């Protein structure tokens, strides 16, 4: 199985998710971006869309309102204004 990296999603009200993932696809403002472990450092803003998280066990997805993503030191941080419940 591929390497995993730390992944967390924070919103103003709560820390929505905090865990390990092997692949995360986020809706970047200029197009979807996929993250694997050891991705280059990047900061980007998000558009409204779906984040897909793949970990060793399963695949999860949820929708975010606009926000920002930062990847550095093998850590993916998603700062979102809100999680849109389905």
């Amino acid at each position, binding site marked *: 199985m591929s390497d995993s990296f730390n992944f967390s999603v*924070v919103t103003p009200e709560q820390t929505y998710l905090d865990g390990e993932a092997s692949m995360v696809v986020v809706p970047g403002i200029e197009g979807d971006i996929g993250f694997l472990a050891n991705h280059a450092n990047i900061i980007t*803003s998000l558009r409204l869309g779906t984040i897909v998280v793949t970990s060793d066990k399963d695949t999860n997805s949820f929708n975010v309102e606009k926000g920002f993503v930062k990847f550095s030191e093998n850590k993916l*941080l998603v700062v979102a204004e809100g999680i849109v419940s389905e």
Partner: protein
Amino acid sequence: MPNLDDLKKRIGSVKSTEKITKAMKMVAAAKLRRAQEAAESSRPYSDSMKDLIESISKGYKPSSTDRNLLTGDEKDQIHLLILFTSERGLCGGFNSIVTRTLRDKIENLIDQNKTVKIVCVGKKGYDILKRQYSEMITEVIDMRAVKSITYQDAKNISDKVVKMFFDGEFDKCSIFYNEFKSVISQIPTEQQVIPIEIISNESDQERKEDSFFEFEPGESEILDEILPLNFTVQVFKALLESAASEQGARMSAMDNASRNAGDMIDNLTLFYNRSRQAVITKELIEIISGAEAV
């Protein structure tokens, strides 16, 4: 000689006051727990936001002509001060202490010939300031209808202020609120939010020296988007801290009031019993001397 009935009534009224203050203390304690939880759960977000801005703003040089939220304007004439107070009283020195901090700042700015504008969030601060500074108060934001503070409340306030900034209505903005340290201690805090004060310590900078970021779309576009958001976060944080502090202050104020009421009841009861005894003694003397006279 005080009337025994009057004393009795007075003891009764102090007792019922004590009941009220005790109940208020209990309510404040319950609300405090909730407010504290809300303040704590918002902390990761504001920390992450700060982290992001630090990463972006490092090495970023804005073109000097821009009016932006990061570096503000070269102008330093009009100051906007936002005061966070409560909607209700009976919370000790909570409102007056933070308002005093604000007043010092206002006097300081007036001495420097600056123009001051004030936005009051919460009615109590406005009540204190309106007599002296009514012409400076540009807006009063009513939070009475708000039961528990949401991010949207903060967004409504910050959207207004950010719009004012880009309309050129002020150059610098500071917020004043009570920071929640513990139930018995709330610290009146002044924080400059526009332009942002970035506190970066040395070791932190060294550690991140080698980190380099790609930006998508561009650095300035991201900053344009993230800075208003950061301002919202600061407002949100101030609101939550202020709410938690309010309940903490009310709780200790009501605790004091209950204790004072208890002391008062003890004193009054003692006085009541003494008077009662005096009345009995007096009656006995009257009877005895009456019997002797016969």
